[in-house]
């Protein structure tokens, strides 16, 4: 068995290696975007089953954002919702034989965590300005600045590690069990992997929202309040 931690380039685009995770991500993107385009064409006030499911997803994401931020969900919906949707589909792509989920390679969770890290900075600056955002690092007092900077990095890093660890552990387990008893036995583990994938997608999206909200609130806080 090849180690899931090792990945070979599918092909080279000049000097650039194109890894399987990138190709699978492109496939996921194609499926999601094409599905979205098809759905958009059929949107109506009297919804079809697919539209009802899509509206349920949008409503749930909006509800979670409202529950975490207490604010209108529009500014965060696309980013947080897309993170959830992509991670969910990427995790569940392990059910397709021969496909390794992109989230089982270190680059994809790292890229996602990097996006969250950058989005925290983006939303924080957009809400409170650069001064407000930087002032947030001095809360509750300037002594905490190094720790706050470290925390902002480590929490994104922890998201990366958590997602990667959970998904790759599932892939490991299924691969090991599959190598021992390839028929039927891995199925319960695959079902468990589905649950783990959904939970990890939810956790990643919610934590992203929590961290963004924290930055936004700290950036918007006035000095005397702090």
């Amino acid at each position, binding site marked *: 068995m090849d180690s899931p931690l*090792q990945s070979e380039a599918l092909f080279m685009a000049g000097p650039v290696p194109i890894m399987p995770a990138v190709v699978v991500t*492109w496939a996921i993107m194609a499926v999601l975007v094409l599905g979205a385009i098809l759905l958009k064409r059929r949107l109506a006030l009297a919804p079809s089953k697919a539209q009802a499911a899509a*509206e349920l997803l949008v409503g749930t994401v909006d509800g979670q954002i409202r529950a975490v931020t207490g604010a209108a969900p529009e500014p965060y919906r696309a980013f947080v919702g897309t993170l959830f949707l992509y991670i969910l589909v990427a995790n569940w792509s392990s059910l397709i034989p021969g496909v390794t989920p992109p989230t089982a390679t270190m680059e994809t969770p*790292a890229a*996602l965590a990097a996006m969250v890290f950058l989005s925290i900075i983006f939303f924080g600056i957009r809400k409170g300005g650069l001064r407000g955002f930087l002032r947030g690092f001095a809360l509750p007092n300037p002594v905490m600045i190094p720790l706050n900077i470290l925390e902002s990095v480590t929490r994104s890093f922890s998201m990366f590690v958590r997602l990667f660890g959970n998904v790759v552990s599932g892939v490991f387990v299924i691969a090991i069990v599959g190598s021992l008893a390839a028929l039927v036995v891995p199925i319960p583990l695959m079902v468990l992997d589905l649950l783990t994938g959904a939970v990890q997608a939810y956790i990643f999206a919610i934590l992203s929202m929590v961290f963004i909200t924290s930055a936004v609130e700290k950036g918007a806080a006035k000095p005397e309040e702090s």
Partner: protein
Amino acid sequence: MSFDLWTLGFQAINVLLLVWLLHRFFWKPVAATIAARQADVATLLQGAEAKRSEAEGALAEIEAIRAGLAAERDALLAETRKEAEAARSAVMASARAEAETLKSAARVDRMQAAEALKASARQDAERLALVIAGQLVARLDAASTDAAFLGWLAEGLTGLSDADRRSLAGATPEIVSATPKDGAAQEGIAKIVATALGQPVTLTFRADPALIAGYELHSPHVTLRNSWAADLARIAASLAASDAAVSDAA
């Protein structure tokens, strides 16, 4: 374990691109559809609320109209009842008056009929009395009857006042008898009259069977009735006066 920065970059770009694409083709349109439906539902609810308010207003209006109708009906009933009562009273009064009039007219008619009947009966009785008297007289002795009536004529003349006697003396009185009198009888009558008046009087004689029996003296100023017919007429007049007194008393 390897970590490829190219892949990291690709995946970061892929995620950003996916965020943008899904924002454009999924999140925004679906959220807009939800908002449109919510707005549509809100509009429908507002419309329904407006319709409900309108219906409640119409219901209240109908209730008011119904209450007004009830009041109007009661008023109309009361007015109609009053009018009917007035009409009934008027009809009753009119009927009572008419009945009273009819009753009065009937009473008058009855009285008139009774009077007419009485008069007719009286006339019949007079005629019967005359017939009976005539038949009775026919059975009596004519001479005795004549003598009796001549005696009564003399008594009547004797009872006249002096002024009546003087007027008779200056006139030519007419002696009316039931049967024609011959010359001797006329002389005897003239003698009795002269004796009763105390002076001779020129008389004329005429016969009238209607007297039945007896003698009457007629002059321009004095009339002396002394006959069965006059007696019967007097009796009839007395009875009529008595009946009139009884009727007036009733």
